[in-house]
């Protein structure tokens, strides 16, 4: 009796030790592979270098809808030039959350979209350097998005301009000749559309969540004309969400949303809106306007029989007589620094091919990764609007925006819920916009204080 009890407890203890050791073992393996032997991406010549390299490259992507069709097609095309480099794709639903966890294990594949939750100072812990910022900035758009300390760790998969998607025919039928330039003109036009046509003037897509978060993208360049606003200014500003007299700045963006909802210029029941269906509806002219990035243009054109009716205008805010639009990179590609060296090089070759030779940017209608390539057709209407990419953050402050943003829970560009709250407040009439903006200001100030940020 006693003997087996003792053995049983020994066994238990052994089990515990073994499983603990297994846990510990995982983290010990994370030894640095030296990056010294890797080329930089600008040194590689596609079709000439590394023809003999044998490598396996696994690419992780969030586009589960096209991973087995379009993306697989790219891989096959690439493997015609490089038959020894085997490229496979893996689609991940719930991309951000899964990848957060998988990154820490180090064993996830070779090439992925860098999740937005990785701070810039942490890039070097997970991703191999692709080259110096100075060199790559001359070739690629948005090179600063995943750069730290003068080194680039990721290159954006093309980019997006931020404007407003609209159905040209509906706007014309309503008798609107000139596109709006201020929030109030915009709201007036929506009212005209409501009165004169059957279309929903502004479709919020509230139920999807991220579509509400998309409004955050306009509070920077589009609302202030300052491409450094989001990266340098807002972290140091006192009460950035306060109303400005000339109707610019973040307040003006949220004012547009709040007023459109409280004046009933949006869909009847936002809680049951449906994003997939909305693409077809704007194509058919059942929706007049949606506030989304330019990446949505191509999708909405393809969603029905009237691709030519889809237009793209800038966000209706004018700063000192001029309209601006921000542009930003999509997800950045990063290479796993813990993968085998040959595989890393293979991944870099594929990345370069994808950025420079593939048709990915025409297919997706986004701003191409190469600076030398022309803007997509979707942005044809952006002639008079100045398109500005964001200025990189000051040295030493690369993480500051993320820290304050997370600490304050205002969640610009990463939490949709605060934007949803604005819509709810407008819908139920429970809070005024000023009240909400004041709360945001308070949270922002508290976060600035807790991080010891100098406020100008």
């Amino acid at each position, binding site marked *: *009796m006693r*003997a*087996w009890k003792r*053995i*049983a407890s020994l*066994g*238990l203890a052994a*089990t*515990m030790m*073994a*499983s*603990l050791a*297994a*846990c510990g073992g995982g983290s010990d393996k994370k030894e640095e592979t030296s990056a010294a032997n890797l080329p930089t991406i600008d040194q590689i010549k596609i079709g000439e270098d590394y023809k003999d390299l044998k490598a396996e490259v696994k690419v992780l992507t969030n586009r589960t809808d096209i991973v087995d069709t379009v993306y697989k097609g790219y891989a096959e095309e690439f493997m015609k030039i490089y038959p020894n480099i085997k490229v496979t794709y893996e689609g991940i639903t719930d991309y*951000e*959350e899964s990848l*957060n*966890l998988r*990154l*820490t294990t180090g064993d996830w594949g070779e090439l992925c979209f860098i999740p937005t*939750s*990785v*701070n810039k100072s*942490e890039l070097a*812990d*997970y991703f191999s350097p692709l080259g110096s910022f100075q060199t790559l900035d001359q070739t690629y758009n948005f090179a600063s998005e995943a750069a730290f300390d003068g080194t680039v760790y990721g290159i954006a998969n093309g980019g997006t301009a931020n404007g407003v998607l609209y159905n040209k025919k509906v706007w014309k039928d309503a008798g609107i000749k000139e596109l709006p330039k201020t929030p109030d003109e915009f709201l007036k036009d929506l009212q005209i559309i409501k009165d004169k046509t059957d279309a929903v003037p502004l479709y919020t897509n*509230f*139920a999807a*969540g991220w579509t509400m978060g998309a409004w955050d993208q306009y509070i920077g360049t589009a609302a202030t004309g300052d491409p450094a606003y989001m990266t340098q200014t807002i972290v140091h500003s006192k009460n950035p969400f306060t109303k400005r007299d000339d109707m610019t700045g973040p307040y003006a963006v949220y004012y547009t949303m709040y007023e459109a909802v409280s004046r009933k210029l949006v869909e*009847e*029941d*936002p*809680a*049951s809106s*449906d994003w997939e269906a909305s693409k077809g509806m704007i194509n058919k002219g059942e929706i007049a306007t949606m506030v989304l990035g330019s990446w949505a243009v191509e999708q909405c054109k393809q969603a029905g029989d009237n691709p030519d009716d889809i237009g793209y205008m800038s966000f209706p805010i004018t700063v000192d007589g001029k309209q601006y639009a921000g542009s930003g990179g999509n997800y950045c590609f990063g290479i796993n620094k813990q993968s085998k060296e040959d595989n890393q090089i293979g991944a870099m070759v594929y990345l370069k091919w994808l950025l420079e030779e593939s048709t990915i940017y025409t297919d997706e209608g986004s701003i191409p990764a190469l600076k030398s390539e022309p803007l997509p057709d979707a942005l044809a209407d952006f002639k008079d609007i100045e398109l500005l990419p964001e200025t990189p953050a000051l040295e030493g402050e690369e993480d500051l925006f993320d820290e304050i943003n*997370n600490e304050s*829970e205002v*969640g610009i560009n*990463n*939490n*949709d*819920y605060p934007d*949803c*709250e604005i819509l*709810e407040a407008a*819908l*139920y009439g429970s809070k005024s916009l000023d009240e909400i903006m004041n709360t945001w200001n308070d949270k922002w100030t508290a976060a600035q204080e807790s991080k010891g940020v100098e406020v100008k």
Partner: protein
Amino acid sequence: MNENEAYVRPKKKRSFSEWFKSGDGQRATVIIVFLFIPLLLLLLFTYIPFLKMVQFSFYDMKYIGGKTFVGLKNYIEVFQRSDCFKSLFVSVYYMLGAIVQLALALFFASLMVFGVQGSGVFKAAMFFPYLICGIAVGFIFKFFYARGFVLDSLLQMIGMNIENIPMWLQDQKINNISLAATSVWRYTGQNMILFLGAMMSVDSELYEAASLDGANRWHQFLYIILPSIKSIVVLNIILSISGSLSAFEPPYVITNGTMGTGTYFVIMNRLAHENQKVGLACAMAIVLLVIIILCTIAQKLFFAYAFDDGTDDESKAAVRKRKKAAKVALKAQQGGGSTV
């Protein structure tokens, strides 16, 4: 007796190999070998993650990157934030839903036990929702409640005007009820099967005997079925209440916690994944664990009192009466003794 002999018998020193070859040793080996894998899995996927979570709750950390020890700050914040505990009120809707669900399940199970034509079909049909995964249920109801979709069309078919139909997910008076109803739909069948299983074990001769004595169906339910399946009922109530406190799938999938439908879990998820405050979310999880434990203990105590059931032969009331009588008698005896 045989087992005790080992202790009684004077101990003879055995070497390990001798012990190993003996019956005792073989039994111990088998037990250890069989326990190893389940224990390993339990540790690996339950206890170690749990201990890690306890550890994380004392840190200020994100999923990736460094962490700093902050002591009890996260716990203090949980109690200071307005959104954490307010969200527990949303759970009240799910608790009320759970009561409706148990009542329905009991009702249907009793119908089945008394014999219904085609009860197999009914059983299968009612149990089926439980087999669908929670996320899929969410999507089903997202479209069910959407303006102008299934529910609205059905109501219009029976003559209701669309203007008089509320917006199921938007109207804050009813949207939590709509969501709680989805979980009632999902779990009623499962509860029913559990009840039915317990009811089947009741001796059917009792019904016959009772009906000879003039008891109707209601009496049979109240005096025969309910007392016999009491422990299952209590178990189901406890499970439903703790389930209500941790309701997640319906609000997360259908409304994403907007429009005042955010339950505790939804808020926790938002803090952890969108604001990257992993430490705070872990602290919230542990606070919820404590709340659930307290609720369970409170319920156990309550049921121990309310359903205190005496023995097989006498009802609780009879036991109480008897004890009271005994007490009075004792008192009288003592009282009598002291005056003498």
